[in-house]
C-alpha cells in the first residue's frame, strides 16, 4: 500500500500543473484540430469536411502570400534578434559600475503589454508628429512613412517585436555566458588572443547551445507575431504585413470561418514544430 502511495506521490506533485495544462492548452489544441476538420461557423459546426479546409487554404493565393510574409518576417526578425541579443549580452556581461542598471533597462520592455507598446510605437512612427521623423528632420534626413510603406512596415514591426523581447533573450544568453569559465579567457589571453578573437574562438562556440535555444524561441515568436500587426498595420499596407496569424484572425473573427481559422492555427503549429525539430537535429549533430 505504502509502495503504491510512493509511486503515486510524484503524480500528485505534478497533478495541478497537468490539470491546468489539460484545460487551457491540451484541450484547446485537440479542439482546434477537431474544428479544423469541420465547416464551422459562428453558431457551430455545419458538417465534417475532412481535409477540405486545408485543401481550400492551399488553393488560396492569400494563404500563400501570408505564409510568404510570415517567412519574410522570420527572416528579418530571427537574425536581427540573434545578433542584437548576443552583442548586448556580451556587452552586459562585463563587470562595470552601474551595469545592473543597464541590464534592468534592457529587461524592462518585457513587462510592457504588447498592445501598449504597439500603440506607443505607432505614435513614434507617425509620419507628421512622430518622434522618429522629428529626429530625422533634426539630422536633415528625409521623412519616412514607416507604416505606410510596404517595405518598411514589416521591418518596423520586427523592430518593435525586437524591442519587446530582446531583454528576455539577453537574460538567457547572460546565463550561458556565466557558464563559460574565466580561466578559458585567461588561457586564451596567454595564447595571444585579442578580445575580438576571444569572442569568435571562445565565446561564440561555447554559447552555441544557448544561441540555439534563442533561435528556436525567436522563430516560434516570429511565426506567432500578432498583436503588433493588429494594432499598427492591420495587415496593411496592401497586405504587406498580413502574416499567418493575421489571416487566422481575419478568417475567424471577421469572416467567421472558424474551421478555416483552426486549420491555419494547426498549420502554424506544424511549421513551428518542424522547424524547431530540424534546428535541434542540425545543431546537435554539429
Amino acid at each position: 500500500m505504502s509502495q503504491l502511495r510512493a509511486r503515486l506521490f510524484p503524480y500528485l506533485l505534478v497533478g495541478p500543473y497537468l490539470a491546468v495544462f489539460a484545460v487551457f492548452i491540451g484541450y484547446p489544441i485537440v479542439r482546434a484540430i477537431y474544428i479544423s476538420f469541420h465547416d464551422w461557423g459562428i453558431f457551430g459546426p455545419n458538417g465534417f469536411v475532412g481535409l477540405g479546409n486545408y485543401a481550400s487554404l492551399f488553393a488560396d493565393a492569400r494563404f500563400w502570400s501570408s505564409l510568404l510574409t510570415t517567412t519574410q518576417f522570420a527572416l528579418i526578425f530571427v537574425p536581427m534578434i540573434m545578433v542584437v541579443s548576443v552583442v548586448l549580452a556580451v556587452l552586459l556581461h562585463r563587470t562595470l559600475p552601474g551595469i545592473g542598471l543597464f541590464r534592468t533597462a534592457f529587461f524592462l520592455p518585457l513587462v510592457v503589454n504588447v498592445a501598449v507598446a504597439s500603440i506607443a510605437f505607432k505614435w513614434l512612427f507617425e509620419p507628421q508628429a512622430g518622434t522618429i521623423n522629428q529626429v530625422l528632420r533634426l539630422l536633415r534626413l528625409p521623412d519616412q512613412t514607416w507604416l505606410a510603406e510596404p517595405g518598411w512596415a514589416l521591418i518596423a514591426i520586427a523592430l518593435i517585436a525586437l524591442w519587446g523581447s530582446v531583454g528576455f533573450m539577453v537574460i538567457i544568453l547572460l546565463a550561458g555566458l556565466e557558464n563559460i569559465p574565466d580561466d578559458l579567457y585567461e588561457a586564451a589571453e596567454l595564447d595571444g588572443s585579442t578580445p575580438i578573437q576571444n569572442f569568435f574562438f571562445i565565446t561564440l562556440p561555447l554559447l552555441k547551445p544557448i544561441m540555439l535555444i534563442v533561435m528556436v524561441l525567436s522563430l516560434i515568436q516570429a511565426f506567432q507575431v500578432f498583436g503588433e500587426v493588429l494594432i499598427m498595420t492591420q495587415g496593411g499596407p496592401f497586405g504587406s504585413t498580413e502574416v499567418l496569424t493575421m489571416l487566422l484572425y481575419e478568417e475567424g473573427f471577421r469572416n467567421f470561418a472558424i474551421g478555416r481559422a483552426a486549420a491555419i492555427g494547426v498549420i502554424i503549429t506544424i511549421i513551428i514544430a518542424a522547424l524547431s525539430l530540424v534546428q535541434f537535429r542540425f545543431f546537435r549533430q554539429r
Partner: protein
Amino acid sequence: MAGLQLSGIHKNYGPVEVIKGIDLAIEPGEFVVFVGPSGCGKSTLLRMIAGLEEITGGTLRIGERVCNKVAARDRGVAMVFQSYALYPHMTAEENVGFGLRLAGVPKAERARRVREVARVLQMEHLLERKPGQLSGGQRQRVAIGRAIIRKPDVFLFDEPLSNLDAALRVDMRMELSRLHADLGATMIYVTHDQVEAMTMADKIVVLDQGRVQQVGTPMELYNMPANLFVAGFIGAPKMNLLRVRIDAADRAGAAISAPFLRATEVRTSVPSALVGQEVTLGIRPHTLELRASGPISGSIRLVERLGDTSIIEVATQAGQSVFAAIDGDIDVELNQVVSLGFDPAKAHLFGPEGTRL
C-alpha cells in the same frame, strides 16, 4: 629562457593588501616553487607575473624588460592552470596549436609542431580527442603541451597537480622535473604541498600572509628554517615546536629545560639577554630516537606505521605531545613508556619573535 626580478611588488584589492612588498630574483633556467598555505598570496603573485592581475606597486622584470604594463600575451610566458583551462570545444590538437593559429603559423607547420610536442609528452594518440574525452592526467598533458609549444621564456604552473590522484601526482611530478631538465626553461610552480616543493624545486619561496618568509634550496629550508612558520611548514611529519626555558647561554650553546624536558644542552648560540626567558625548541621527528634514558619521557599514545618508518606520538607526564619518526622495524605498542633523545646539533631554537636564533 629568461630570469625574473621582482622588486617591492605590492597588490591591493581596494583597501585589502594581499601582497606586501616582495623582492625576489629568479635566475634563467631555475625551477622555483612558491609554497604556502591557502590565501598566502602565492597564486596572486603568479598571476601578476603572468599579466592576469595588475601590479599595484613595485617593478616586475622578465629578462631585461620591465613588464608591469605589458599585456599577458606579450610577456613571453605560458601558464598551466589548476583547472587546465582547456577549450572544451576544441580537440587536443587544436588546444595545443591554438596559440600558433592565433600567431598566423601556417597549418602544415602548426601540425608538425603539435606532433613534435605530442611526441615529447607521449600523447600522440590523444590528439583527436576533446577534453571531455580525456582523463585528468591526459588533460594535464594537453595543458602542458599548450604551454611548451610556444617556446616561452618562462613557464608558470598554478597548482597543476592538485586535481590528480596521489599515484598520478607522483608520476607527473617526476615528469615535470624531467621536462624541466630537457627544456632547461625557467619555471615557476605554485603549490600548497610542501612535498611537491621539496622534490621539484631548485629554489623554494615560502610565502605567508603576502610576505616572503624564506627563500632557499629545499635542504636549506629543511635544515635552517628562518622562522617558526617555515619550520612548521616544511618537512613531513611536521617539526615538533616546544616551549622551553633558557637556563644558561653562551656562544657555544645553551642549556634549556621544560616541565616535559630534562635539562639538556643544544648547540645554538643564544644571546645572554634571553637567559630565563621562554623560547621555542624545534626538533624534527626524524632526529628523535628511542633511547634507554633520553631527556623526554612519556607513554606512546599513537602509532602510525608507514613501513620503513613508524610515526609515534609520545605524551609526556607534563601533558606535552612529541612526535617521533622511528625505524619501522622497531616493535612498539600503545601505552608503552619510552624515552626519546636527540642530537643537540640538529635542534633549532626560535626566539620570542619566532625568528631563528
